[in-house]
């Protein structure tokens, strides 16, 4: 049996990828009351780098609770002020998807099944923008 720390703070890892005028933030691990503030800092640092939209990829996120939900709502309103869009990747069947469906995240963000779908949405936004 592997030694285990008696109390382990919730772990979450945020990785950043900038492409097509957008920022892709991938979250891994768990987001709850214990680490939501830390995750918020990491995400907000990237908001300024997004020109069209911010993609939050939760495909491999294990757990998201109401504190994380609140973070997503806050994020969407900040992006709305900048006329940017929040795209959340949360595949059906995952725990975060269930939570986000329950709180009707689709009212303030675009919910997609895959990252490709999200990137496609981003490119569509660029084309739309250049036409105007």
């Amino acid at each position, binding site marked *: 049996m592997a030694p285990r720390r008696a109390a382990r703070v919730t772990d979450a890892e945020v990785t950043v990828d900038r492409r097509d005028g957008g920022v892709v933030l991938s979250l891994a691990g768990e987001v709850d*009351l214990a680490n939501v503030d830390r995750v918020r800092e990491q995400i907000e640092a990237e908001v300024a780098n997004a020109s069209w939209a911010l993609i939050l990829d939760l495909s491999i996120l294990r757990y998201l609770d109401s504190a994380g939900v609140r973070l997503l709502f806050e994020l969407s309103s900040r992006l709305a002020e900048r006329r940017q869009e929040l795209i959340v990747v949360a595949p059906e069947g995952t725990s975060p998807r269930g939570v986000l469906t329950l709180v009707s995240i689709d009212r303030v963000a675009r919910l997609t099944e895959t990252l490709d779908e999200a990137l496609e949405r981003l490119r569509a936004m660029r084309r739309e923008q250049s036409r105007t």
Partner: protein
Amino acid sequence: MSQFAVMAALNGVIASAYLVMATYLAPRFGLPAPARIAAIAFFTACGLTHVELLVHTLANQPAWMTSGHMFAIHGVQAAVDWGFILVAVRHLDIRFTRRMPRAAERLADALHLVSAGAWEWDPRRDRLFVSAEFAEMCGADPDWQPSAAEFVERCVHPDDRGRLMRAVASRRDGGGEGDGRPGEVEYRVVRPDGEVRTLLTRFEPSPRRGRRGRRGTVVGAAQDVTERRSADDERERARVAEERADREQRIAETLQRSLLPARLPDAQPLELAARYLPARAGAEVGGDWYDVLPLPNGHVGLVMGDVVGRGIPAAALVGKLRNGLRAYAYEGHSPARTLDRLNRLLDGHTEMATVLFALYEPETSRLSWVSAGHPPPLVRRADGTREFLEGGRSVPLGALGQTTYAAAEGTLEPGAMLLLYTDGLVERPGEPILAALERLREAARQNGSADALCEATVSALLPGGAGADDVAVLAAHVPAGTARCRMRLPAEAAALSDLRRRLRRWLQAQGVERPLRERVTLCTSEAASNAVEHAYGLERATFSVDAAVDGDALTVAIADGGRWREPRGRDGGRGTLLMRASADSVDVARSPEGTTVTLGWRLAGRRA
């Protein structure tokens, strides 16, 4: 009578006095041989002078003799000679009494019969006359006639000198500074060969008076009481040793009792019982101990140990091991790594112990254990079979400076019991250990509580109580049919991930499918987040989680010590929304003691 006749008579007497001194006394002077010869020559010469004067006086009556003038000169010389003789004889008085005074001599003869020695001290001339027995007691020559100072210097133990001299001086003279009553003093003499003897001396001032009002002497009788005293000392030493042993026994017992749990902690879901049987009266306290550690991660550590040795040192070592083991276990080290570290803590030259450390994980029923030379634990399975856990064995702690312990793993399913014990339970003179283990296996046949198992095994193996060794027994029972997971956690956000991890494992062990598992975990974590938020600022606040499967009903109760408040603007009530949306039922019960949120689900495909 003519003056010549007088002169002749005088000279004759002086001459004979000198001759007596030369022929009889001079050899008896305590002088070295050359001085003795010189003294004989001197007295002989003096005597011859007077003989010559006598002869001349009687025979010739020479002209110079006739003059009154010369007569006067001869008279003066005679007077000087007499003076000299008197001084010499006065001095020789000592030598006349060189032998024991007669009274003392009789006393010495009497004392000889009782192996006592006699002495007489003449303070005026400062001589100590001792009997042969007394001289022998002091390891001295029987003829030895020392001064008091010489005697004290040569014979008396330095620590006892002052006492002896004060005692004798205080009784020395009936009319002087002392009170003249008999005295008694005990002192040690050191013989030339270094042997120390203890003499008990009774003494009293002698009524005998010397010539010309000389002061009295002190007469004493001494007995060698060395053997008697050493027997007394031996008895005293034995008494002191016994007292110390009693005291040490009490200390060791107190120490040891303080190292055993006063009462077994709440280690849900385990039901626990323990026995400690001290060795039969007279034996020193042994080094057995047991411990139960409900760890912060919900696992339960069960410890049984036996330190080599007895009394205070053993109890002290138990303290070291018990606390070391607790510290490492609470830090999250596995049983094997805990024993590795504990082993390094021991002084391998003097300290050795056998330890069994088992770790039970309630969520999975997993049991892992390491045995450092300890007898194997007994498991009574839910189906009634009994087996000894033989794996995970290695050398005792302290046997090797650096060694790595390895754990064995098994399960302790609901309905099973685990029995840890020390060798006092199974080691009895005249019985092979395997036979005793077999009897232990038989004794654990009956099903029942942990307490019943302790009782059954102890009464079967030790019907007459503990033998020469202490016995400790610890039983842990996983109650059958309990599909329960109970935890108490600190009301901190940091505890949430631990809560979810344990709950998920338990749910998985209960066969709950993943989607429901995640919903139950989410709801429980949300309720716990609420408890954490409301406990903000409270010191050491905790909350408890009690999950149970009963038939087709799964319930999770989250209880805290705070007042439930509807969530503030934190998440716009989304936490409550998530709970209500994800659970089949949500019940919030508020009381002055705290708030309990009970979540319920129906499990599909199970009988009610």
